[in-house]
């Protein structure tokens, strides 16, 4: 398969694809190679978990996958589109429409209520306020916190904030969901609820990439990829698929 392929995509194709991606922070003397030649594909319906010690490059990988950071070399493709070639506006639009983020800290906007936080990406994208709000309430319902719709983040527990953040990542038609330690501060029951929602969204056709330290949570994924020092060192995929998926297309 060529990376410049423009034929209509089938569900078997990768929603997210990283080809030989390297990210070096800083220059020369202070350069840190956070990611070194990582290749990875996540298809529709697939949830992939990333595990690895602190500093192994997990967040870097996720930020690159969502276009929040740019690769030093190699390319990142979302639904076949190489995001490195997109102009600022086009990239922002792609991110808003297609990519849902759940960050390591929840990143809710403190001056907005839960439903306003969730509706924001839709409104920024030009949807009518009433419609955006309706869809936001649907998303909050899906993660089980609809009764918090009109509450401000500082009046919610950590677990509740996290679920609102997940609703925000899932609202609309996002086909790629990226989650960085989404269960960090949650008790085991709430944490499992988060995984269940992510899993359901992937079963319904989204592609998911999940960073977690907890093996119990990573086990909800179809595949677990292990990072160490910016390199993929192993994966639970069957040997055959792992090789096919990890093969750079260059």
């Amino acid at each position, binding site marked *: 398969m060529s990376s410049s392929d423009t034929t209509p995509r089938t569900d078997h194709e990768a929603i997210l694809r990283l080809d030989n991606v390297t990210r070096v922070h800083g220059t020369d003397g202070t350069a840190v190679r956070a990611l070194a030649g990582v290749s990875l594909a996540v298809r529709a319906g697939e949830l992939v978990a990333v*595990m690895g*010690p602190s500093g192994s490059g997990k967040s870097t990988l996720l930020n690159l996958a969502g276009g929040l950071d740019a690769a030093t070399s190699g390319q990142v493709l979302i639904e076949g589109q190489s995001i490195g070639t997109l102009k600022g506006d086009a990239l922002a639009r792609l991110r808003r429409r297609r990519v849902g983020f759940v960050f390591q800290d929840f990143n809710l906007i403190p001056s907005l209520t839960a439903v306003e936080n969730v509706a924001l990406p839709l409104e920024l994208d030009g949807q009518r306020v009433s419609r955006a709000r309706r869809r936001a309430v649907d998303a909050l319902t899906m993660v089980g916190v609809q009764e918090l719709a009109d509450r401000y983040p500082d009046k919610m527990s950590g677990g509740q904030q996290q679920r609102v953040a997940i609703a925000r990542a899932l609202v609309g038609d996002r086909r790629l969901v990226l989650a960085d330690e989404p269960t960090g501060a949650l008790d085991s029951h709430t944490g499992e609820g988060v995984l269940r929602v992510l*899993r359901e969204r992937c079963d319904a056709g989204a592609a998911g990439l999940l960073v977690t330290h*907890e*093996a*119990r949570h*990573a*086990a*909800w*994924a*179809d595949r*677990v990829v*292990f990072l160490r020092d910016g390199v993929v*060192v*192993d*994966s*639970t995929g069957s040997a055959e698929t792992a090789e096919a998926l990890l093969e750079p297309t260059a």
Partner: protein
Amino acid sequence: MSVKQGLLALLATEPMYGAQLRSEFEARTGGTWPLNVGQVYTTLARLERDGLVEAIGEDAEGRISYRLTRAGQAEVARWWVSPVTRETTPRDELVIKLALAVTVEGVDVHRVVQTQRTATLRHLQDLTRLKQRATTHHEAAEDGDGQVDLAWLLVLENLIYAGEAEVRWLDHVEARLVREANRPRRPASATPGTTATTTDPAMGAIAGDQSTTTKGAPR
């Protein structure tokens, strides 16, 4: 797990014959610890000898049902309120393997750790799929069935937490090896004032050996 206590607890619900006890035991624990019928009968014979159960006659097919005696009821009641003790440390192949790996020259310990981590995660993925299925079934089940599903879910979750603990321990082993590899080494004849780390009881006797034997482990 003592088969004895399990059978007594089941007999507390109603009198049963051997094959029935076996299938009830397996249904409630998801078949994770299969019993053979012979084991059930020898255990029943012992319980009868000790006066904890008594036979209450045969049915048309010649199957003997047992019920608890007063002493048996007291034994069950005592079991529910006593903690489970784990006095003997079971021999764990993984622990032994790693303990040997760090002390045998030329073993790539990081590779041993990663191979195990991947395998344990695969196992966890299987368990999680079973759990998802059991959860769906449980949510759709009628009351009676639901209780059995719940028992199976608890067993599965126990196995999941055990797998997770294993992975956490592997993470810890790996982090410790990295720290060991980077630890500045003191000459053998350290002055008394600098021996604090080597006499740290938390490090145990093995720690001293590790610093010399993990040098060869590639990072």
